[in-house]
């Protein structure tokens, strides 16, 4: 996880997501971004534009997302992808989705045309489409793309990556400058492609780097819990996973080291050989390291009966006190996963340790 964390050098916050693309997720992503944006003074002026672009690019994915899953299940890079990153001078939204090759020319020309127009010309084109325009069979009129360029003020970055069986992957990048003086794109579409492929190869479904304060956690938990629903209802078989995610995230918020005002950490959901894993990492003070390591060692060496006994004793002794849970969260994770978790510490500086915990879900 530390090597993955190190790839995010410029991003204050970044969320990469493969998964269920629907309006609920869009709302939660907007909430998550807004939580961060509203906390960061210089970003508030672009918060409305950011929300609009997130919603628009997401709707684009839903509209053009995979329809015939069976046909393309044999293609390796066949997963719709979405990423939002907040850097010091801009917000970057990237997405990737599968297209049939027959759409490449039309879409490519449309994007090229939109990118070449001035703000005034874009306004005219929008007006003309609204008055006489045609709606594509996918439900769009190109208006979404026009609005993306109008709102961001910078051309869209794109790449059509050939896949097999008549399909390609469209990687789209939108940049929203925080300062209106910025007039140049910065996205390297090839590095986005590389990042996308790395996540697919490592079977990562979701990757979040950023703040783990309680307001950010709340939105993330809502979004993640959504993935464990069955017909819109909580799937009782997945309850333990939801609670494990909550405990892991709140643990970072409580014990993680604050860096530049953020409880910084990285969180991933991976699917390895059909099994779902949750991995979470954050920095801790070296002073806390020995205690945590001892606690984890004790938990890992215990059997189910011992874990239950430890949990009950700790609960009985602490429920009347307002002190920190004292490892109750870790014990709960161990019980829920039948001790199927691993942990790791990397010494990064003299006073800092990068701590990771990886849980196999049930």
């Amino acid at each position, binding site marked *: 996880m530390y090597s993955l964390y190190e790839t995010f050098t410029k991003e204050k916050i970044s969320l990469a997501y493969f998964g269920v693309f629907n309006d609920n997720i869009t709302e939660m992503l907007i909430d998550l971004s807004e939580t961060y944006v509203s906390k960061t003074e210089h970003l508030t002026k672009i918060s409305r534009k950011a929300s609009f672009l997130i919603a628009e690019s997401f709707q684009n994915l839903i509209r053009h997302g995979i329809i015939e899953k069976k046909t393309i299940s044999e293609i390796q890079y066949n997963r719709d992808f979405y990423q939002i990153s907040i850097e010091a001078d801009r917000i970057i939204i990237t997405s990737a989705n599968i297209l049939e090759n027959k759409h490449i020319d039309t879409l490519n020309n449309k994007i090229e045309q939109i990118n070449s127009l001035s703000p005034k010309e874009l306004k005219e084109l929008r007006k003309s489409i609204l008055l006489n325009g045609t709606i594509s069979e996918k439900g769009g009129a190109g208006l979404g793309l026009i609005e993306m360029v109008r709102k961001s003020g910078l051309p869209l970055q794109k790449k059509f990556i050939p896949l097999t069986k008549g399909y390609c992957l469209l990687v789209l990048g939108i940049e929203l400058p925080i300062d209106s003086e910025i007039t140049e794109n910065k996205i390297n579409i090839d590095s986005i492609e590389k990042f996308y492929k790395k996540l697919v190869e490592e079977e990562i479904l979701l990757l979040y780097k950023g703040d783990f304060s*309680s307001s950010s956690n709340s939105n993330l938990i*809502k979004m993640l819990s959504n993935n464990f629903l069955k017909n819109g209802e909580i799937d*009782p078989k997945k309850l333990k996973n939801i*609670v494990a995610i*909550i405990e892991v995230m709140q643990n970072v918020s409580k014990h993680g080291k604050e860096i530049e005002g953020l409880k910084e950490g990285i969180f991933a959901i991976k699917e390895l050989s059909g099994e779902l894993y949750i991995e979470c990492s954050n920095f801790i003070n070296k002073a806390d390291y020995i205690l945590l390591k001892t606690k984890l060692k004790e938990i890992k060496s215990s059997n189910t009966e011992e874990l239950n006994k430890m949990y*009950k004793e700790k609960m*009985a002794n602490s429920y*009347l006190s307002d002190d920190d*849970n004292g490892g109750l969260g870790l014990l709960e994770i161990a019980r829920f996963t039948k001790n199927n978790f691993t942990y790791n510490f990397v010494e990064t500086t003299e006073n800092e340790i990068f701590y990771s915990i990886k849980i196999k879900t049930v």
Partner: protein
Amino acid sequence: MEKLIIAPTSETPEINFDGENGMFKISGKSYPENVNTFYNQIFDYIEKYKQKPATTTTVEFFWLYYNTATNKMIMRIIMFLKDASPQYKIKWYFKKGFELIEEKGTEIKEILDINLETIEI
């Protein structure tokens, strides 16, 4: 005594306390990071109730899920209410299939050594 009604949010439960009739109902999800912020108002109400309790205090829980910090609050609520009246009843409802919630109820019953009835609905 006035009722205490609190609507649920995505991370806090629905509260329906009727001190006049000794009925205390809590349902939904609970995973606020700072449990005290939410549960302090509940303990304030219980304190007032204890001054003039009903003959029987009935506490009903109907959980979907909650975090370990909430587990502590649930136990505290039970212990604060248990001795308020000459008689008490604790009903622990759970949805069919939610064995985890049933187990959590049984566990609390064991830890606190109390009468707690688990009921599938």
